[in-house]
């Protein structure tokens, strides 16, 4: 009868003796082919003696005691360790046999063995994968000598140790008889650890240790409840001292979508960590600017996934912060349709969340829009769905009158404060873009005598000032465009005269957005057959850049109709779908991405990181203080002192809170031109008074 093989005990203990043997084994010396000696020497030379010594010492010291300091040290060195392991893996992959690997890297067995037995290292997904791959390299499918057979045995024992508990221990007995798979057992146990820990925390306040322990576990799916509990704890308990590095790691994982945690925990994270909040806001910007094709189809999904509207509705300072970021961005690129669509959708989602809150949980609207008069807030923040369709025209007239009053004061004063007021009013209109879309929809079926107010609103959205935006001039253009587009969609086949006129208007740098906006609303809401509309689109919208902007406008229209409880006719729904497909049809031209802006965002990201390291303060605390002081808007505190835009305009951080963030550093008035630099300067100039700053 064959005997049952005895389970080998404690691979980590056995491994040291085993490896010592391996290194000194006569078989190793016997098969030492001198021909490969030079190559081995070269590979080994890539590893400096001190480096190997350093990591070996670390592996030994980490294995000796599991204390808070060890944990912290391990998690701090994980990045370095990963690159060392990667290097080692590459070295091992070049070896022709395990024997050769053992000779070239005499430390490898002990090193890998120690790391595999260290829970803080093995728990890290990337380190774990690297370690397993190294072991795989050392495993011989057809062992040729005693060394390789012994190495195989050792590797199998090590793997066994990784997946099971030590035999004879209570842990082993409990897992063995749990009646579920070990995977489930550990998952359930981890969930319970979260609960137990939560119960004990408040009594002994040792959150710091726990959060330190969790640094390496941030992306571990099973630990998600515990991570969530820690984050929530940080807002429940005032004395909480959640480890900063832990928060940092969670933020990174969340923004890069490697983390699944509950909503409440994310809100806590945004409250606790300004860098994470800004990272989330900027990641949305990055996606609308860099990946417009995908994002424009599901903008609200992207916004809601990051839970920014939810968090903003619950915490006013979060809304103010996100808004401030978008305000500053819009000040730079106020013509960018995609950024406007993002702001509009974000605000809309936020308003929906705020309405859904119980009255006692939510703050009044005026707290979220501190600098704006009620005469503006009242008509604009009312959702179109709350106003009967028949009253839309009157409501839009009210909005127009309120805005016009602000604009008129600009003419009279001409000073910085008046510009600020116009900008604030305009920004609110961008946020509440659904009303301008409603105006554009009404213009499709309206008679000429009622069109004036609606055309004014549309013009104001795209041309808010007379400084560079040329509002007065564009009001005339809008009227002209409206007449041509109306005629274009009425006559069939399209008359060449109107076709040319619309094409000309669309090609003008100044009026293209306004005309496109109007044009697309006709395309969606006019009653002509859809084939006719697509025919016009094919003739008019040729340029790839125009098509992309058109997609953004359609996405805003779609969002307004679909998500804001305005009943959507099947006909319109079908038309939207077809129009989208027409616009998405392949096109030879490549899309232009504003590279300078992306560089700007990336640079900002880096600056934000360094800011949080140097101050260590939280946004939350600052904001509390700030709110006590005044109710004015929250400036972008963490912006670096100066950020260079590649377009040439220099922005400088303004220390004084009540002032604008950006001051114009350009002394001479630029000549009108079409170079990117001039346009950037011009954009900037529009929102800055001659006195320097809003």
């Amino acid at each position, binding site marked *: 009868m064959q*005997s049952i093989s005895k389970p080998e005990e404690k691979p980590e203990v056995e491994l040291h003796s085993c490896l010592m043997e391996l290194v000194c084994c006569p078989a190793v010396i016997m098969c030492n082919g001198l021909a490969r000696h030079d190559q081995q020497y070269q590979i080994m030379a890539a590893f400096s003696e001190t480096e190997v010594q350093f990591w070996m010492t670390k592996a030994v010291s980490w294995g000796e005691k599991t204390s808070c300091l060890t944990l912290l040290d391990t998690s701090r060195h994980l990045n370095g360790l990963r690159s060392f392991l990667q290097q080692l893996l590459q070295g091992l992959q070049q070896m022709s046999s395990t024997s050769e690997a053992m000779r070239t890297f005499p430390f490898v067995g002990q090193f890998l063995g120690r790391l595999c037995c260290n829970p803080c290292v093995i728990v890290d997904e990337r380190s774990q994968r690297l370690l397993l791959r190294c072991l795989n390299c050392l495993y011989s499918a057809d062992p040729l000598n005693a060394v390789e057979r012994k190495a195989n045995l050792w590797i199998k024992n090590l793997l066994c140790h990784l997946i099971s508990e030590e035999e*004879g221990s209570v842990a082993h*007995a409990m897992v*063995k008889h749990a009646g579920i798979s070990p995977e489930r057992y550990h998952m359930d146990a981890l969930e319970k650890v979260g609960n137990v820990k939560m119960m004990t925390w408040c009594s002994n306040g040792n959150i710091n240790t726990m959060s330190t322990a969790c640094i390496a576990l941030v992306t571990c799916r099973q630990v998600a409840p515990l991570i969530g509990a820690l984050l929530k704890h940080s807002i429940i308990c005032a004395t909480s001292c959640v480890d900063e590095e832990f928060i940092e790691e969670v933020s990174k994982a969340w923004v890069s979508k490697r983390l699944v945690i509950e909503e409440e925990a994310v809100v806590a994270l945004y409250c606790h960590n300004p860098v994470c909040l800004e990272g989330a806001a900027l990641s949305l910007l990055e996606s609308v600017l860099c990946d417009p094709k995908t994002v424009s189809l599901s903008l609200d999904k992207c916004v809601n996934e990051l839970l920014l509207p939810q968090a903003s509705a619950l915490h006013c300072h979060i809304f103010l912060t996100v808004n401030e970021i978008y305000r500053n961005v819009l000040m730079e690129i106020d013509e960018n349709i995609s950024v406007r669509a993002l702001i509009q959708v974000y605000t809309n989602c936020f308003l929906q969340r705020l309405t859904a809150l119980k009255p006692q949980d939510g703050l009044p609207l005026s707290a979220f829009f501190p600098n704006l008069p009620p005469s503006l807030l009242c008509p604009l923040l009312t959702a179109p769905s709350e106003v009967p369709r028949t009253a839309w025209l009157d409501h839009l007239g009210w909005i127009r009158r309120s805005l016009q009053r602000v604009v008129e004061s600009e003419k009279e004063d001409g000073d910085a404060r008046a510009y600020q007021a116009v900008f604030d009013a305009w920004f609110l209109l961008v946020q509440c873009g659904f009303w301008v879309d409603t105006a554009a929809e009404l213009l499709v079926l309206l008679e000429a005598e009622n069109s004036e107010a609606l055309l004014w609103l549309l013009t104001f959205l795209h041309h808010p000032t007379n400084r560079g935006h040329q509002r007065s001039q564009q009001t005339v253009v809008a009227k002209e465009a409206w007449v041509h587009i109306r005629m274009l969609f009425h006559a069939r086949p399209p008359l060449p005269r109107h076709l040319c006129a619309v094409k000309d208007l669309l090609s003008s740098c100044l009026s293209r957005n306004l005309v496109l906006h109007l044009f697309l609303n006709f395309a969606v809401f006019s009653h002509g057959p859809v084939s006719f509309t697509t025919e016009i689109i094919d003739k008019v919208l040729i340029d790839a850049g125009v098509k992309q902007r058109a997609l953004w406008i359609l996405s805003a229209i779609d969002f307004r109709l679909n998500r804001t409880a305005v009943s959507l006719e099947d006909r319109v729904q079908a038309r939207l779908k077809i129009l989208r497909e027409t616009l998405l049809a392949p096109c030879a031209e490549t899309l232009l991405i504003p590279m300078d802006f992306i560089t700007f965002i990336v640079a900002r990201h880096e600056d934000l990181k360094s800011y949080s390291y140097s101050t260590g303060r939280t946004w939350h605390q600052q904001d509390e203080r700030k709110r006590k002081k005044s109710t004015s808007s929250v400036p972008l505190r963490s912006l670096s002192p100066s950020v260079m835009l590649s377009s040439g305009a220099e922005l400088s951080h303004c220390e004084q809170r009540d002032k604008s963030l950006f001051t114009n550093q350009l002394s001479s008035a630029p000549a009108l031109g079409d170079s990117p630099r001039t346009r950037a300067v011009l954009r900037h100039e529009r929102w800055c008074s001659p006195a320097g700053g809003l």
Partner: protein
Amino acid sequence: MDDVVGRLQQVVELLAVSQLDCVNEWDHQTMLRAFEWAQYCEQVHARSHANPALRSALESRLHDTNQRLRETLPSYSPVMLSELAQCQHKLLVNLLRNPSSPSSIIHVFPIDRITGEQRGLDMDQTPVITGKSALKMLCCSSDWTSYSGLQVETEVRGKLLKRHLKTILTQRGNENSARILLDSILHDSAGKTENLYDVMAAALLASDDDTNNLSRDVILGWLQSHDGCLSKLCRSLSPRLCCVLSRESVTFQRAYCDVLRRWANSLDYDVMQSAWVPTCSITSEKTVTFNVLFDRFRALLNSGSPVKEETETKLAELKVESGDFDVKGISVWTDLILQLKV
């Protein structure tokens, strides 16, 4: 039904064979089939473990198979029903521990994803490795204890044990299965019983919506029916923890008092030392000192109503039973009461 039970028996035999030298003859296909059968076995377990009729049929067949295999293979350790839930894992561990296993066993690990998938084995072990190490790391990273004074790891394992017992006991007639489970756990954690008693205590304390406390009663019944188990448990747990348990369960409180009574009765008065000393003669149980008894009663008296009152009554009863003396050195109860100043 017979077919299923028959196949299950074959899988158990397969698990035994996976520990033998003959696995070196397994080619890759054989190994693949072995894992497939193990998976089948897990599915059968998932569907049948809660059904008392199926359960007892499976248990009895398992028992026979285990016995037969033990006769053939002297070092064979029996497979219990609950283990069938992790058949694939068990097979993998057996093969890894077996020096004769084919070298392709390594491909079960997601080391080289492409190779693994080509070979048809897709048993990603990453969640197990990560889960195990995460648990170890969280539980070892601090020496925190919960309010009952238990280690976090112990408490978690206790909660999971209680949950498992509760699942088994949701069906009437499964009480015996629950006891078999506790037997197996005791058998497999031999040598580390102190930790086991902590886990049992945690299971007794685990609060959930188990309104009739069936699982708690089963654990207590099992402890009492095993010679010395309850006494060992009480000795291993701190006086404070025993008080917490007494507050939670009247059954435990009575059993605990009974254990204390037996400990006290095993003390003899040494006139030369003027003290109560343990006698070694009575039972195999290790006896405790007078001071230990004193500490435990004091803890009970300090643990508030109604445990305090009940302990006082019990002490008074025991004093009367042992002759109701008021002078020191005759009855251990009188001396305890005098020292406790009840």
